[in-house]
């Protein structure tokens, strides 16, 4: 079997991205533990990063014939930084709420009616 014939194209990456995004979105609504929900959000954000980097590699550098248009890479870096800030605040809030209720289960976060 000749491995060089196996090509991993743009659609593969986009498929992985879409799958990760869907798993993340499902997790946000289905998981009951707040930590797991934060992890699901990270999955969604990383799906976006895969999309950005794949588009940058496969579409826009090949079209222009250069390999230094880095918009997608820069976008992915910004997303990573913002996601880190977001999760830092998120975990701090989880600790606060755990101190109040001794629980990280979202079903018990019902003091405000939906």
């Amino acid at each position, binding site marked *: 079997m000749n491995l060089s014939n196996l090509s991993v194209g743009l659609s593969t990456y986009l498929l992985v991205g879409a799958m990760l995004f869907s798993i993340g979105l499902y997790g946000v609504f289905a998981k009951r533990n707040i930590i797991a929900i934060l992890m699901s959000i990270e999955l969604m954000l990383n799906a976006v990063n895969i999309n950005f980097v794949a588009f940058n590699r496969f579409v826009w550098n090949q079209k222009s014939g250069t390999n230094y248009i880095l918009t997608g890479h820069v976008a992915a870096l910004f997303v990573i930084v913002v996601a880190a800030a977001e999760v830092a*605040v998120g975990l701090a809030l989880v600790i*606060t*709420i755990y101190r109040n209720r001794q629980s990280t289960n979202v079903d018990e976060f019902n003091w405000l009616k939906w």
Partner: protein
Amino acid sequence: MVDFNIATVLTPEIAMAALALILLAIGLLIPPGARKGMMPLTAFSLLGVLGYTLFDFFHGTKALFLDGLYLHDQFAVYFKVLFLAAALLVVLSSGGYVQKLAEHRGEFYSLIMTATLGMMIMAGAGELITMYIGLELMTISFYILVAYLSDDARSSEAGIKYLVLGATSSAILLYGISLVYGLTGSTQYTEIASGLGANLSPASFLATVFLLAGLGFKISLVPFHLWAPDIYEGAPTPVTAFLAIASKAAAFAVLIRVYLLMMNSQAFSGTGQTLLVVLAALTMILGNLIAIPQTNIKRLLAYSSIAQAGYLMVGIIAESVAGVKGVLFYAMIYVFANMGAFAVATHVSEKQGSDQIKDFAGLARRSPLAAVVMTASLLSLAGIPPLAGFVGKFYLFSAVMDSGYTAIAYIGFVMSMVSVYYYLSVVKVMFLGEGEGLPDIPVHGAVKFTMVFTMLITLAIGIYPTPLAQMAAAAAQSLIK
């Protein structure tokens, strides 16, 4: 293009970033006894930046710099004035509330500053990644502000709910941005507009719907509005005011740019218009109807602000200079009307420890000024003639009728009538309720100033709207040639 200096054009942003850091440092360094001075210090520095920004509006140059990454036009500066005015009023009305906090008083003002900076970046952004950074700067500051009362479990619950839903919505927004980038190779509004072209592919439709969903969450458009009442109820009242007024206006600034510049291709306007008309109608109908049975003043104002977002969407649907002018005008008067209502709500909840509408009973006797300001603000939100809200709604609905969407304007009219009912029921409680055993709560100092000022502005713009209307028209012109 006129010559300009980046440092001059960016002065308000630089000043806000510096102020946020300085206030943070001061809050940590000064002894606890001297922290009363934080509020006047913040208010005066905001006043200075606001003055400069107003000057900038009339005399600044139109500029596009850093390869179109950032825009400096009257549209952006108009919104900066709006955010700074809202921040100033929030700071002025929150003095007593913040004094009651057990700890971290200095950081409160610093976070208000970073949130305002995020909004200013959103209004000025000329491309999607910059816009996203501004949006997150604003939103992350708000996550902390909403959960600020760390010993009040309802506040931290509101914070964690806002964080989970807000982060999910920004992930959806980002997925849309990544698809737009894949389709057009650019994240700049103008290049995207030409890149998307005339044919609507499934992918570009998906991308635009994701973008609309992400931004729709921030302005609490109806299918994405469920977070608003909970977070508004749980958050500290001054933060709720800021969230309801400024973060919504910031998302509208982005939505106008994204919708009118980027998606304004022939292919999209057919499907996209239908989508927006349906969502705006649902927002107005549900927001107003669910507001009726509310018993908590913050939840009532939350649903009312959902409905107000529906009215503002009407101006975007018009897709014309007149429509954008209507949105800008209405967004500005919405700041003053809502701020008046929230200043009273903050005052009552600070003195009586309750947000229930029944605890406003007899407010006309116990605190006449607060009752009068609340009445004026609510009537302006409802759009009763001598007040500013009437003029704003007139601009919005006449613009959308000129563009040929009569049905949505009728829904707006009818729903405004409905809104009068629940606004007046609060007024009824204040003026006709007995309020036996409830304390007298006179208003003093900066809070009194905020109340009187918002009411005077609401009245003045209602009677003589021309100056603000001209500013809004100039800003709308600078966006659409």
